[in-house]
């Protein structure tokens, strides 16, 4: 093997010796021991590799990234070991049945049913209680969230309230409540606490709150604040007392 070929192979040899047992490197490592020119080149190469490794390792993730990932896990589907009924083939069959039933349902039911505010908050409380909130996209950039919600037919042209605007976003989802699309944006509000912002097309609610008058509500351990602005009705949902949710308005 000429030295150029040996150098190409040795370029892929990790400087920490993790590849020492890989037979592909055995011949070239032996050649480097015999050939002083190749040995010198290899020593310089490994020294550079070490410096570059240290430089790459010096990049540190933001301090809150780990918390965000763990927190997001609580609102994501987890890779559980699925039972036979949860495997793709069965799920596909079940989905086909559900789709057929859904089509039949909508064929008989021409329009979406309007929602009530209490219906939205109790559905949100149920989802939260049963850990069934799933984020469709784990993105924090507001513009990307807006685009994603638009692509998924959710209300997207809105601004987060001042209290939440500066908080880190974990992701978003579009919920389907009685056939109505409701946008959900998940915020991380310090440590591992989450607050959800729901955005609803005001016309889909039979009892939207009065414009400019936020209402605070309590349902179990979940607190809500809701208000209407323009064509949108907003709901903030978070754990704690209703008074504490006021800070996010």
């Amino acid at each position, binding site marked *: 093997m000429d030295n150029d070929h040996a150098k190409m192979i040795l370029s892929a040899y990790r400087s920490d010796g993790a590849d020492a047992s890989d037979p592909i490197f055995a011949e070239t490592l032996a050649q480097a021991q015999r050939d002083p020119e190749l040995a010198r080149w290899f020593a310089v190469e490994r020294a550079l590799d070490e410096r570059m490794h240290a430089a790459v390792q010096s990049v540190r993730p933001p301090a809150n990234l780990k918390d965000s*990932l763990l927190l997001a896990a609580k609102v994501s589907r987890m890779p559980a070991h699925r039972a036979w009924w949860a495997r793709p083939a069965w799920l596909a069959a079940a989905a086909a049945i559900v789709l057929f039933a859904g089509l039949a349902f909508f064929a008989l039911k021409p329009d979406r049913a309007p929602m009530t505010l209490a219906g939205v908050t109790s559905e949100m409380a149920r989802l939260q209680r049963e850990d069934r909130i799933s984020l469709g996209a784990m993105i924090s950039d507001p513009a990307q969230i807006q685009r994603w919600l638009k692509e998924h037919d959710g209300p997207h042209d809105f601004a987060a309230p001042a209290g939440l605007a500066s908080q880190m976003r974990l992701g978003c989802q579009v919920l389907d409540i*009685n056939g109505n699309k409701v946008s959900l944006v998940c915020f991380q509000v310090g440590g591992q606490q989450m607050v959800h912002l729901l955005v609803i097309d005001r016309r889909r609610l039979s009892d939207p709150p009065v414009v400019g008058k936020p209402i605070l509500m309590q349902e179990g351990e979940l607190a809500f604040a809701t208000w209407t602005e323009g064509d949108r009705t907003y709901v903030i949902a978070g754990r704690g007392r209703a008074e504490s949710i006021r800070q996010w308005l």
Partner: protein
Amino acid sequence: MPTEILPPLEPMDFEDIVNRYYEDLYRFAFSLARNRDEACDLTQQTYAVYAEKGWQVRDASKVKSWLFTTLYREFLRLRERGRRLVSMDDENAAVPEQVAASDTERSVEHAELLDILASLDDGHREILTLFYLQQHAYKDIAGILEVPIGTVMSRLSRAKDALRKKLDAAVQQKGITVIPIDSIQKRPVQNG
């Protein structure tokens, strides 16, 4: 009210996988995106995909490669769709925001090396970052980048050549002359 029914959560398994890999995934994402926010999003999205589809990975030893492959695909998908928010003109884009080093000199050297790494072509930067993370053998890198093993070796070799040229240029730009080690050793020691 009809809403999606999801399988139960297993936060302990997920937490372990986050603990093991999130830092290196972020480093790879940061090298690809050259932007902290996008690197966070890519890392988050990778774990989101894992949360949804990770159960398909039956061999636990494959999880690491699976995550890196997923992150890389996610990056390519975003880039192809023109949704990257990275400004290549951003003068801070290539500079790591958080360099962990106890001594300032070393931090400066790391920042300079990362700067040079960030200035390489995408193909060279991607493969070098994966290699310098030291988490993957060349075979795994081939799998992550979806290229033949032989291509990894030749591309890695070319990428290192490109890196060396940039390093040499940077050294010359600073007006520092590189003296071969041999000649230093042969030079007589001058006292006083």
